[in-house]
């Protein structure tokens, strides 16, 4: 291994090599942090909402004739949907996970003003919600039908019981080690609400909220002109049931508009469209940077082969085999890459710390750095192989030509 002479030779021609090392360092810093962002987004996209998403769809009904009996219409609609073959259950609700719009409230463990509270998304619905969403009840019991009440628009009435997500219960009662069922909390600073059930996972509608895992079911139905229905079907029946439900609802009452029919798959896709685009864009940028860095290395190596044609011929004349010539360029590239990668690793960590502080990003996973090192070393080695092989084909006879 000619590490020493190659390093000393590099130090005699610093400019080109330092520029490539700098390019590798910048690529590494950007690549690592781009991958960290992509990982974070992918992790967010992979979080379960708690719902049986593949078998759920949602639609809305907007009644446009004043004075309609909305409570009767909602009951009739739900009865009609639930009777449709292939439907497991259905609810009317103000929102659902990933919808990106909904309601939230602050809850506190003691009544009174100025107390710390914990925010949670609230889904106003009924005793069919657990079955419709496909939630896993891990503690307590579902709502009894008589717990469910109607509230009118503008009312500030609040139910006395709720079923909460485990994440919300843990956030509100961080020191509790036993059961959360039976615990009392307060909404609107004074109204007591008792936890009667805990579900394993139930996300809030806003995927970007830092409390996205905190949500609850509230046994209250709202008789507004605008209603949002969520329907769960038997596995594989969703796409068959959707047009049937739409048609049945449209036929049952012509004084309203049925719209916004979407599967949960579509809802998830729309919710994470930006993240998905961000991942693709960053992947493109990382790939582009790697290609540019690779081309930079190819360019520098080609330039060096041209510049050192005679020197390579001399080395061949002195006994270097073609393999040894190729290895020379590989070792040279390894050293330049090592310099760039070393600086790049420091830059990457510094940039990540800056982003963690500035944008509340999760710190990057430690293993991204060694993976990035291997990737960049591999890109360097792959990029240099062409020029190095070309160099190995230089005739040793060039050594006897005058020059």
């Amino acid at each position, binding site marked *: 291994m*000619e590490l*020493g*002479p190659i390093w*000393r*030779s590099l130090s*005699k*021609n610093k400019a080109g090599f330092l520029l490539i090392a700098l390019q590798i360092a910048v690529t590494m810093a950007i690549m690592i942090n781009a991958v960290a962002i992509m990982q974070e987004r992918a992790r967010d996209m992979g979080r379960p909402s708690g719902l049986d998403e593949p078998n759920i769809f949602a639609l809305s009904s907007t009644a446009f004739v004043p004075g309609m009996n909305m409570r009767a219409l909602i009951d009739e609609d739900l009865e009609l949907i639930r009777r449709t073959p292939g439907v497991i259950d259905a609810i009317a609700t103000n929102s659902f996970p990933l919808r990106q719009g909904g309601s939230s409230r602050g809850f506190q463990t003691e009544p009174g003003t100025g107390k710390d509270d914990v925010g949670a998304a609230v889904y106003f619905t009924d005793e069919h919600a657990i079955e419709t969403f496909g939630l896993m009840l891990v503690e307590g019991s579902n709502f009894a039908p008589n717990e469910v009440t109607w509230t009118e628009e503008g009312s500030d009435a609040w139910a006395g019981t709720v079923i909460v997500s485990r994440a919300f219960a843990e956030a509100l009662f961080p020191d509790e080690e036993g059961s959360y069922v039976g615990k009392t909390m307060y909404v609107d600073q004074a109204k007591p609400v008792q936890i009667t059930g805990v579900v394993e996972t139930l996300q809030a509608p806003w995927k970007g909220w830092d409390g996205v895992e905190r949500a609850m079911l509230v046994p209250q139905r709202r008789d507004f002109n605008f209603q949002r229905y969520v329907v769960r079907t038997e596995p594989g029946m969703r796409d068959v049931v959707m047009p049937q439900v739409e048609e049945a609802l449209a036929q049952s009452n012509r004084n309203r508009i049925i719209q916004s029919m979407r599967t949960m798959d579509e809802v998830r896709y729309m919710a994470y469209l930006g993240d998905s685009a961000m991942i693709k864009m960053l992947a493109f940028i990382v790939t582009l940077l790697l290609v540019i860095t690779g081309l930079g290395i190819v360019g520098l190596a080609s330039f060096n082969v041209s510049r050192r044609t*005679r*020197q390579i011929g*001399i*080395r*061949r*004349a*002195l*006994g*270097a*085999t*073609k*393999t*040894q010539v190729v290895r020379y360029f590989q070792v040279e590239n390894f050293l330049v890459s090592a310099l760039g990668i070393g600086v790049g690793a420091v830059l990457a960590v510094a940039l990540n710390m800056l982003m963690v502080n500035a944008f509340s990003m999760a710190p990057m996973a430690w293993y991204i750095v060694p993976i990035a090192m291997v990737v960049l070393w591999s890109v360097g080695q792959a990029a240099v192989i062409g020029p190095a092989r070309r160099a190995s084909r230089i*005739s*040793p*006879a060039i*050594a*006897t030509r*005058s*020059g």
Partner: protein
Amino acid sequence: MLKMTKVSKIYRTDTVETHALREFSLEVQEGEFVSVTGPSGSGKTTFLNIAGLLEELTSGTYELDGRDISALSDRERSKVRNEKIGFIFQSFNLIPELNIFDNVDVPLRYRGFAAPDRRKRIENSLEMVGLASRMEHYPAQLSGGQQQRVAIARALAGEPRFLLADEPTGNLDTEMATNVLDLLDEINGNGTTIIMVTHELTLADRAKRNIFVRDGRVSDGPPEFRLAAAGGQG
């Protein structure tokens, strides 16, 4: 030691064939100091390239140390070059980015010697050419004569069976050229076979045997050459 029999070398392009060597035959015994002279374009450098395994011959046979060289692979040719042949070039051919120590070290690394052995060989060979104190210098910091002495040290460090010198004094003034030729005499006196290619008949006079090449063949040469050759042999 070196035996070329009816060696030909033809350079071909799409439209032109150039016969650089035509049935060139030569035998050199161990310990000889042979000069090869001839006018420009006579085939001296082609002979040197083939003798030094820098180029392949087109036809004929070439034996080095009793081994047929023409059938060797590129890797084997590199190995033979590295182990048996020392090169001294007209333009010194030192690597400008490496200091003197590293320059002499180049063929030794390819040979696979251990670091302590290499260091000893480098120090000894630089000592022999009187440049042991300049190991850390770069070629650009040395005179032409000193650079050629470094090149000689590089050629000798691996203890080759023979030296191929291509116009070794071509880029040197008279005094430096004399020094280098004295050094070659000394090396030959120590038993190393030397073949020196030169176009200067006065330099050829320093060799023990002179070969004149014209049109790619060994030739009798002009009268002044025959005189010089007779002197050299005598």
